[in-house]
């Protein structure tokens, strides 16, 4: 019951919402928050309420759940702003999530480790894996495997310095050949290309799931024989 949640100490309500948004792995919608809070049997939990010196924030209990939750989030954000916290709760992609605020986010973005994040999209990773396992390889060959045009993605990998041009294929049009770089090895923590897992190794792991494991056996359970043995051993 959502009404039960409303009966909690107001500070506690704020903190629970805050914790939910903080820990959620995707932007969490008001709807999801409502559902979670409704399912939460908070009263099973031995709960120590927080005694703030501040007055309880004013919340209009008559608001319907979604509006009520939005207001709580606003209150949390007010609190952050008041205390000059470097982060706040923002609304993105249909949900709420934490992010550094503008003031401190800009400082953070000045720092090199936050600037050059080597994040790859799925198509980039796909293309990179094809190059890694088939190098040296040409663009048309990559595209044949992926089934889609991959020029832009190859370029983005070149930009990220994960692949480089390693020569030309001695065939019609002498297309460029691509291979992986030292940067690539570093990204995956490999000493050499030799350390890449082989396809048949992973195939073994993946296919084990489907492997018939059952072996038919017939064991003779002639009890008298076993008893004989027992007595021989034990004696």
């Amino acid at each position, binding site marked *: 019951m959502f009404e039960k949640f409303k009966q909690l100490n107001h500070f506690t309500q704020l903190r629970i919402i805050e*914790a939910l948004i*903080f*820990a*959620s*792995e*995707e*932007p969490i919608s008001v709807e999801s928050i409502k559902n979670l809070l409704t399912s939460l049997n908070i009263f099973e939990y031995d709960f120590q309420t927080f005694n703030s010196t501040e007055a309880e924030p004013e919340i209009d209990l008559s608001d319907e759940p979604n509006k009520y939750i939005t207001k709580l989030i606003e209150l949390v954000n007010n609190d952050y702003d008041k205390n000059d916290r470097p982060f706040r709760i*923002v*609304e*993105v*992609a*249909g949900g709420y*999530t*934490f*992010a*550094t605020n503008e003031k401190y*986010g800009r400082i953070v973005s000045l720092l090199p480790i936050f600037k050059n994040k*080597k*994040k*790859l*999209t*799925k*198509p980039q*990773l*796909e293309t*990179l*894996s*094809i190059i*890694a*396992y088939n190098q040296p390889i040409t663009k048309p060959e990559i595209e044949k*495997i*992926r*089934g889609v045009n991959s020029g832009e993605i190859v370029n983005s990998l070149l930009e990220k310095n994960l692949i480089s041009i390693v020569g030309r294929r001695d065939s019609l049009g002498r297309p460029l050949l691509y291979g992986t770089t030292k940067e690539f090895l570093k*990204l*995956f*923590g*490999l000493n050499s290309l030799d*350390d*890449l*897992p082989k*396809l048949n190794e*992973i*195939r073994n792991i*993946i296919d084990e799931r489907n492997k018939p*494991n*059952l*072996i038919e*056996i017939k*064991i003779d*359970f002639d009890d008298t024989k*076993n008893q004989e*043995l*027992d007595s*021989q*051993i*034990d004696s």
Partner: protein
Amino acid sequence: MYKIVLPNFEGPLDLLLYFIKRDEINIYDIPIARITEEFLNYIKLMQINDIEVTSEFILMASLLMQIKAQMLLPKNQNTSETQIEDPRKALVEQLIEYQIFKEISESLKNKIELHNHLFYRGIYESNIKEISDKYKSFKQLTTWDLIKTYYEVINRNKNIEIQEVKINPLKIEEEIEKIKSIVNKEGQINFNSLLAGKEKPLIVVAFIAVLELVKQKQIFAFQNEYGSEIIIFSTSFINQN
């Protein structure tokens, strides 16, 4: 009608340890004949109850029978100076090693419970563009991600029949209008719901229409993780909120 419920064992070592504990057997002096019999009876029970008897159980059964046979060999009193190794020794060592890691996994389990409350920040990006990127990207890339992706790519294309689909350009325009009105009305929809009941060429049309709308920034599409449901938002819906 009755049903026998067998305790669930991780494997033959687990089963043997169960017998040892239950019967308070001295692990350094296992009564091999008795244990072998128990073990084989258990396998028989598994078979009766249609429980998969994996090769490891069979191997262990044969090992036990082999040890049992060796124990039966008459001990030659005269060759006692060259101490014959207890045929059970290797098995006992393996059992103890396994006990140790069972114990450790118990303590790891307690550690998880102890740190039950530890939840780390779930998301590290701050704007829509980056978030939608993140959903298609990987937190920390590992070689596992790399090879698994490769495995998926080459297997995916093995199964794809290349078909020539003739698309009437008019249809795409129609489809764009249709999708636009649905998305604007609903605010957000699942991509799959657009395809429901459609035949292959029409699926392609719908897909191209969605791509076109994304390109025109009329809609916004994102996916939680690769292979999961693609959700489509109306951009006006996002701006409103």
